[in-house]
């Protein structure tokens, strides 16, 4: 019996060997960190993306091409949740154009907001946003900064019952109106809340995050880099030598893994205009996460 042997097979065997030697790395790389949405159990990649400022490029052809690369990198690295708002200028329209161009309408977990003080305009605004995004249904509609909440929330609930939206939620940022948010979370059945939480701004840890866990509400974390300020302040420093233990290889992972390692957090939504930054940010979706002791160290390091 002759064993068929060719150069191609030989090279193939070598590749397999090389892959085996990287097996643990590959395993880690191929399993994005996902978190269940408590109200359904659907699992969401723990890093999503924001679009405030970064995707407001209007109809600029050059910038549309560039942002298409950023968005494609996000999806290719395992991301799904994109957060926007009618408040963000052209960001929703841009997202619609790019999703169509990249044929990613089926990949995206589309989250936008209702941003109007006209409490009767919920359905109209959602329909307009749907048109801009070019999708049949939003996965998540959030009341932006609790604006017009009393009118929008009942309508959103009705829309959810009619199958027009899958989840509903509310947003705050910069630590504003945490008291109101807390009351709301106690009172209303919400699928999601969005709030600001990062290694320096940790007010949410005291009451809101435990309450979300208790009530089974998914948490989206905005401003994970304090709008970029965390990089301005800390990125020139070397990473601490224990960073590897926390699964961290750069500052973006440091900031993001701190956030998503909190057990109440479902997803952080960093925003970027750059493909290389997107690549760094998506690194936080893979590998080890810091345990509570390391999380403490992460705070102390920057304190």
């Amino acid at each position, binding site marked *: 019996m002759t064993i068929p042997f060719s150069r191609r097979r030989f090279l193939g065997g070598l590749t397999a060997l090389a892959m085996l030697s990287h097996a643990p790395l590959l395993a880690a790389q191929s399993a994005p960190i996902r978190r269940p949405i408590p109200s359904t159990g659907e699992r969401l990649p723990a890093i999503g993306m924001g679009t405030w400022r970064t995707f407001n490029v*209007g109809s*600029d052809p050059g*910038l549309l091409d560039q942002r298409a690369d950023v968005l494609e990198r996000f999806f290719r690295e395992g991301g799904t949740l994109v957060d926007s708002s009618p408040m963000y200028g052209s960001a929703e*329209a841009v997202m619609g154009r790019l999703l169509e161009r990249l044929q990613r309408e089926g990949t995206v977990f589309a989250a936008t907001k209702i941003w109007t003080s006209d409490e009767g305009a919920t359905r109209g605004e959602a329909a307009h946003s749907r048109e801009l995004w070019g999708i049949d249904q939003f996965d998540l509609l959030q009341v932006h900064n609790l604006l017009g909440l009393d009118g929008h929330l009942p309508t959103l609930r009705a829309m959810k019952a009619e199958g027009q939206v899958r989840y509903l939620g509310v947003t705050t940022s910069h630590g504003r109106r945490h008291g109101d948010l807390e009351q709301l979370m106690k009172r209303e059945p919400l699928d999601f809340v969005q709030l600001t939480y990062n290694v320096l701004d940790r007010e949410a840890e005291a009451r809101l995050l435990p309450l979300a866990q208790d009530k089974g509400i998914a948490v989206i974390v905005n401003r994970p880099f304090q709008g970029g300020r965390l990089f301005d302040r800390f990125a020139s420093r070397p990473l601490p030598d224990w960073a590897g233990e926390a699964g961290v290889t750069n500052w973006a992972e440091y900031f993001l893994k701190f956030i998503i390692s909190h057990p109440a957090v479902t997803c952080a939504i960093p925003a970027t205009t750059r493909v290389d930054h997107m690549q760094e940010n998506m690194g936080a979706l893979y590998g080890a996460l810091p345990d509570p002791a390391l999380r403490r160290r992460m705070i102390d390091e920057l304190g």
Partner: protein
Amino acid sequence: MDYALRDFLMFTPEVYLRLFMRLNEAFWPWQLLFPFALLALAGLLSLPQGRARRLALSVLGVGWILTALLFLQRYYEPIHWGMAYAVWAFLAEAILLAVLAWRVTPARVPLGIGLIGSAMVMALSMAGAVSAGTVEAMGWPGLTPDATALLTVLALLTVPWKPRCVLLVVPVLWLLFSGLTQWALELRATLVPPAVGLGVALWGLWPGTRKRPRPKR
């Protein structure tokens, strides 16, 4: 968790500067006429005939209309919903300038002074080019808002104090808004035209400048 001015910014500096580049690309080569329009303005304001000087105000009004419909509506509004209101304010200023041209005759300005003013506005129109590092980002007076507002503030020094105050409202509000925007964008060069415009406006609003200039009919 404090707010900073930059937290209110809706777009990045690159997107902002590219608005000017895209407008210049689309409008080319018509903007080359604008320096001549500036010279014509200086010329008109220097003429003894009151009608010529009134015409200068109407020419300025055309600049506000062009700026509203081209730069603000077509380029700026898609990235800033607030521009929908600015478009109306700019059109209102154009109407006010037309009314002013009908009712008031500007004071005569020596040609040399007018030319210095025009040269200053042209020089400051280069601010965007300095910030972007390319002449394509230049903000022409009569086509883009900061340079148009600056030119108008200068021209309004030729009209009596009361109507001047009314006509200064829109340019001053714009220059304030734009100055804050440049500040938040951390663009230094483009901060200069709003700063100069506001300085001149402040001087023009000062009651001490009330009596001057006496319009000659």
